[in-house]
């Protein structure tokens, strides 16, 4: 799984931090910052939830096929 975030679109709702605190954080401006682009498998469900909760649709999740 690979995650990209669009910090220009981010409106700082913080839903990603609540859903997947091991993967997402907010910088001092309140904008999303990514702790890892390739989260461990046990984080995938939380990451998908974060992506679906994001009100500005700033989180893109892609799953690479090996």
């Amino acid at each position, binding site marked *: 799984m690979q995650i990209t975030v669009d910090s220009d679109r981010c*409106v700082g709702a913080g839903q990603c931090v609540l859903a997947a605190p091991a993967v997402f954080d907010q910088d001092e401006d309140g*904008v999303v910052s990514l702790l890892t682009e390739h989260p461990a498998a046990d984080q995938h469900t939380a990451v998908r939830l974060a992506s679906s909760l994001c*009100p500005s649709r700033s989180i893109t999740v892609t799953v690479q096929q090996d």
Partner: protein
Amino acid sequence: MKSAEPSVVDFPLRRPGEAFPPPRYQDYRTREGLVVCHLPNGNRAWLVTRHEDVRAVLTNKKISSNPDYPGFPNISDTMGVPRQEQIPGWFVGLDSPEHDRFRKALIPEFTVRRVRELRPAIERTVDAQIDAMLAAGKTAGNTADLVADFALPVPSLVISTLLGVPPVDRDFFESRTRTLIAIRASTDQQRNEATKELLRYINRLVEIKVKWPGDDLISRLLATGTLAAQELPGVLMLLLIAGHETTANNIGLGVMTLLQNPQWIGDDRVVEETLRFHSVADLVSLRVAVEDVEISGQLVKAGEGIIPLVAAANHDADAFACPYQFDPARTERQHVAFGYGVHQCLGQNLVRVEMEIAYRRLFERIPDLELAVPVEELPFKYDGVLCGLHELPVRWSQRPSGAQQEEH
């Protein structure tokens, strides 16, 4: 694209004695496309009721939040809410990119981390208000109106703390904000007067913070300089109004629901489910199309009003299993109680923490809290934009625990 004439339905005003959300929302959700309603002022607007459609509307760039745009579904004139003059900084009515400058200036104040730092202050506020309610209740046979004595003051005091309102002014601040939202107890004139007084007060507060900055939101906004000083009163008024009655209604309705479902007392998941289940801001996210746009296969023309019904979306069975059941254990989290898109509630994480602490401390300290009237006699708000309770009469019998040590 549908060409059939859509069905015309009544404006979704709540009716006395009717369940909320009203059964007719279920009917609208099952109809193809959208339904049309006549607003109290005679204009027409589209009602959007499915969860997916509501989220699509609230993220569509062809759809505006600007109430000055012709065709915007103005409902507040007829619903007892004071008409807000257009004041600089009232950014809820702006679209991107103008809106984004305000939002970005404010989000550092409402991050998950910042709200966590506010927890101790919120705990103190909640506990002090419980002390006051218990003390006042002693002379009334251990009874209180949980709305007036707890649910309304708590968010007002929290926002006072956040803004750096000096303690000496908090009673004034709280009484004016209460007048502003008391649909039954105050007249239009009183509400307009309260709005003016609050704006004057906030203007003075900004002037004071310019001269004597402190550790508060206003001082920090002034220091960063992203917003002009004359824009701050509008911004602060918005924070105050948006966060007061909404939060109070969630606290009151949540306590009512917990008293009916005591098996959930002490479970923090109640917060999220209360937000979804009660959907107090059903009629708050109003929009207008600025270009022709297709929603749910329906052509909505530029200049036509759109009303996404939050409570309808939050009870859509395609998004939530058994939506009419109060189930804090449910796994679906994607409710739109705080709206969606760039205008999604800025204070949502603060509200969550206020609700969580309010429920927890209330039931820890007054374990035998109970309704003082049957639940069917509780006065629901049928006459305002927001859903909630006008009053929540409660009583308790045992000596409450955790009160401050009395000196002997």
